[in-house]
């Protein structure tokens, strides 16, 4: 009766949670959640993105080949064409006239040049639609601003590229239609929304396919081993509740849930299975050993996820919170059913294992470490292409547009603290081959003495030239221009004037920064004070730093685990036995990385943490129970469930889940075999 009431209550709770989950907001692209652990770098990148230098909410379309239907579809989906490079009013450059060479100014002020310019006023006045040109002449009557602008035309991307911006929210259905049309065409189109769409589509597919496969196989496995509908029902209902609770917990903390975290939630079946199995069949002759097994199994998993809460990566923290909330929810859900669970029997598993001496374990550890030393520790480097879904078509398009932006010196930008003389700093970097100033406003900079020469000329001859232009403008019926005074230009003023399409000078976190394109051949790591601000390099750097940070967390987690297990087992030999498979896993992973040519990334390291959280259970429980057939049965069942779950994840479309799946499957597979077939030899 009590169980029935609890089941009914659980179903009601499930319904309520399902209703609440309708309000959860999804984040499509895991890249968007990345933020540099260095707050200055993070704010700098944010400021750059806000300044319109980023690619958020934008699509870029090449003019050729032309696809009017695709363009119409983009407009229907809420995209409006915006200038790729915002226009600069030429008159705004006139105040930089001191940067012109005296000879150039002399030519502009010459009577013939002024007459020519005055004549153009009446030419344009006679034409319809000449307002913009006449206004430009009126505001820059001597053509000084135009000369400055011409001397260093602001870098503009290929004229064949058009930009479209979205104001409204991301619409998956509209993007689906647009993406389909794009794939059928030969149009060149790229943008963050296309990546976001591909990532959400992959996450949806992973949720549907991987989630279904995992659920069916886990339930089948559970049924074949336990032959109890109660267990199958509890696992199904409890996992549904833990899935929804995890979603809501992440949403409550972050205000949005990464789609990839939803797909990852299929792993809860495995964690829940572990909890259920270890709580069951509690009639144990040795209650101390049972408690030890239970605390080893559940405690290590919780420690693994608690360590991940300290990660800077949003995706990792979301996965950790989802896992902890999901596991706690499942544990709470089981409470009313504890009686039947504890009294349920599981079939024992007799395995003819081998005893392994301390010496052999030490030998295994040494061999593993030697293998790692020979094969080499994989390099820690994460590229955003390894962190999110990117179809080959979209990758080609990104390369197509990158090449165009690079031609205009808009790609691969770096920032460095500006100090009081930012152009001098940039020129030092340029001399070292670090930055390319060939399209940079710093090129215009002239010494104070050189500027004074030009200013003297302007003071001497500028007034007369302006009077002649004023006469011409008034004769045409236009307002006379106002006289202006010219002054020497400071370095910061020059950089601030050229603010489109790149803000070459900007403040972030209380520091001024100057921006320049990285030289083509430069290796950025040679100049630690250069901060990457272009999306690919920035996110790649962030991912690498986060991976390194995760390695530290992993080490700390492993240390915490060792202390926890030492306190539980009170035996160095047992703890040594528990940890031995981790060394074998380390050697196997190093071999896998060498053979497949992969670099160590954030998700691999998260996988390591999960391996210590999950795989240590197997050896820990086996050792604490003296390899009793009953506990080995539990180890085999939970291990098989983990292998099914993470094995399925190895086939995910999302590279994040795939890397996680492969790593955990490898680690848990080795640990499971070791726990089942080797037992520590009791000291003589």
């Amino acid at each position, binding site marked *: 009766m009590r169980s029935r009431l609890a089941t009914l209550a659980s179903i009601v709770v499930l319904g309520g949670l399902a209703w609440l989950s309708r309000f959860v907001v999804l984040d499509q692209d895991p890249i968007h959640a990345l933020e540099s652990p260095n707050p200055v770098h993070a704010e700098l990148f944010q400021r750059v993105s806000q300044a319109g230098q980023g690619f958020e909410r934008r699509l870029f379309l090449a003019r050729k080949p032309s696809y009017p239907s695709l363009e119409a579809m983009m407009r229907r989906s809420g995209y409006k*064409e915006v200038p790729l490079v915002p226009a600069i009013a030429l008159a705004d450059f006139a105040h930089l006239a001191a940067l012109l060479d005296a000879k150039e100014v002399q030519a502009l002020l010459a009577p013939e040049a002024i007459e020519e310019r005055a004549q*153009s006023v009446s030419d344009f*006045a*006679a034409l*319809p*639609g000449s307002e*913009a040109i006449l206004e430009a002449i009126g505001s820059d009557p001597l053509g000084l601003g135009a000369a400055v602008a011409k001397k260093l035309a602001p870098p503009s991307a290929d004229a064949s590229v058009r930009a479209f911006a979205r104001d409204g929210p991301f619409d998956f259905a509209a993007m689906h239609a647009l993406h389909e049309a794009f794939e059928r065409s030969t149009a060149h189109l790229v943008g963050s929304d296309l990546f976001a769409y591909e990532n959400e589509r992959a996450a949806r597919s992973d949720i549907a396919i991987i989630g279904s496969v995992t659920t069916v196989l886990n339930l089948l496995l559970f049924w074949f081993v336990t032959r109890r509908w109660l267990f199958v029902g509890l696992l199904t209902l409890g996992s549904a509740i833990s899935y929804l609770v995890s979603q809501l917990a992440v949403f409550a903390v972050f205000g949005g849930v990464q789609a990839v975290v939803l797909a990852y939630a299929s792993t809860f079946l495995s964690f829940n299975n572990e909890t259920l199995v270890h709580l069951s069949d509690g009639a144990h002759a040795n209650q101390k050993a049972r408690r030890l097994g239970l605390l080893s199994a559940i405690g290590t998993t919780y420690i693994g996820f608690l360590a991940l809460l300290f990660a800077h990566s949003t995706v990792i923290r979301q996965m950790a919170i989802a896992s902890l909330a999901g596991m706690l929810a499942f544990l709470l859900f089981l409470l009313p059913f504890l009686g039947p669970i504890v009294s349920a029997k599981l079939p024992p598993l007799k395995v003819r294992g081998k005893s392994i001496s301390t010496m052999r374990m030490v030998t295994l550890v040494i061999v593993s470490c030697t293998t790692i030393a020979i094969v080499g520790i994989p390099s820690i480097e994460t590229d955003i292409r390894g962190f999110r879904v990117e179809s080959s078509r979209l990758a080609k398009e990104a390369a197509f547009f990158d090449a165009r932006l690079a031609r205009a010196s808009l790609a691969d930008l770096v920032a460095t603290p500006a100090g009081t003389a930012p152009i001098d700093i940039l020129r030092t970097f340029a001399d070292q081959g670090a930055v390319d100033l060939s399209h940079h406003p710093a090129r215009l900079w002239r010494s104070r003495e050189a500027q004074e020469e030009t200013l003297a000329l302007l003071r001497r001859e500028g007034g007369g030239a302006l009077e002649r232009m004023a006469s011409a403008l008034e004769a045409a019926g236009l307002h*006379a221009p106002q006289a202006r005074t010219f002054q020497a230009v400071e370095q910061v003023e020059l950089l601030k004037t050229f603010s489109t399409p790149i803000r070459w000078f900007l403040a972030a976190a209380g520091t001024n920064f100057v921006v320049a394109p990285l030289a083509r051949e430069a290796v950025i790591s040679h100049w630690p004070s250069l901060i990457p601000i272009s999306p690919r390099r920035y996110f790649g750097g962030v991912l690498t730093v986060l991976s390194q940070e995760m390695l530290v967390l992993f080490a700390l987690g492993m240390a915490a685990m060792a202390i926890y297990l030492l306190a539980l087992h009170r035996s160095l030999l047992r703890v040594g036995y528990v940890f031995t498979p981790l060394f074998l896993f380390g050697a196997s992973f190093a071999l896998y990385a060498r053979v497949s040519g992969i670099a160590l990334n954030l998700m691999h390291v998260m996988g390591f943490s999960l391996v210590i959280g999950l795989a240590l259970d197997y050896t820990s429980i086996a050792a604490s129970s003296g390899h009793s057939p009953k506990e080995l049965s539990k180890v085999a069942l939970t291990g098989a469930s983990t292998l099914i779950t993470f094995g399925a994840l190895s086939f995910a479309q999302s590279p994040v889940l795939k890397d996680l799946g492969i790593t955990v499957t490898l680690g848990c597979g080795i640990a499971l075999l070791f726990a089942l077939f080797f037992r520590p030899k009791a000291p003589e």
Partner: protein
Amino acid sequence: MTALLWVLLAQSQPNDFLVGIQATQKVHAEVAMLKEGALWARPYASKVVLDWTPQEIRWETLAPVRSLVEIEGARIAVTDARGRRRVLPAQSTPPLGGLLGALDALVALDQSKLEQLFDIRTDGSGLTLIPKPTVGMVGISLIEVRLNAAREIQTVVLHAPRETTRLTFTKVERIPAAAH
């Protein structure tokens, strides 16, 4: 202006106003141009003779200062009162080019060309043209065209943010393509 645009966009009548107008081979017209707005110290009035063929537009100003503007595709040449001829610098032509392209379609009353450049609304006595964002017509927000009873151009009013240009057409001689 926004309200005006909104009202105009709401008038989504079928765009058949120009249906039946024959393709044009040549147009000769006398035009009075009046420019006024914040840009101008006083209204600018000029008298112009316009000659149009599919290949070229000749815009000859007779007063206040004589000049001749010849437009062939993207090339714009100006001959001043003293007979000096020069081709306008390339960087000054794009802002003009968009509008002159529109003038070309307007004088010819070429519906298909107009539809490429504008969103067209009709109100019974004329057309209201709103430049499409993709055309890059700098500074022009709206063009109003009025035709007379013989469905010939009578006035064209160009609305720019700080200027209004009114073109009044007289003595329009249009040679249809078929009659040429």
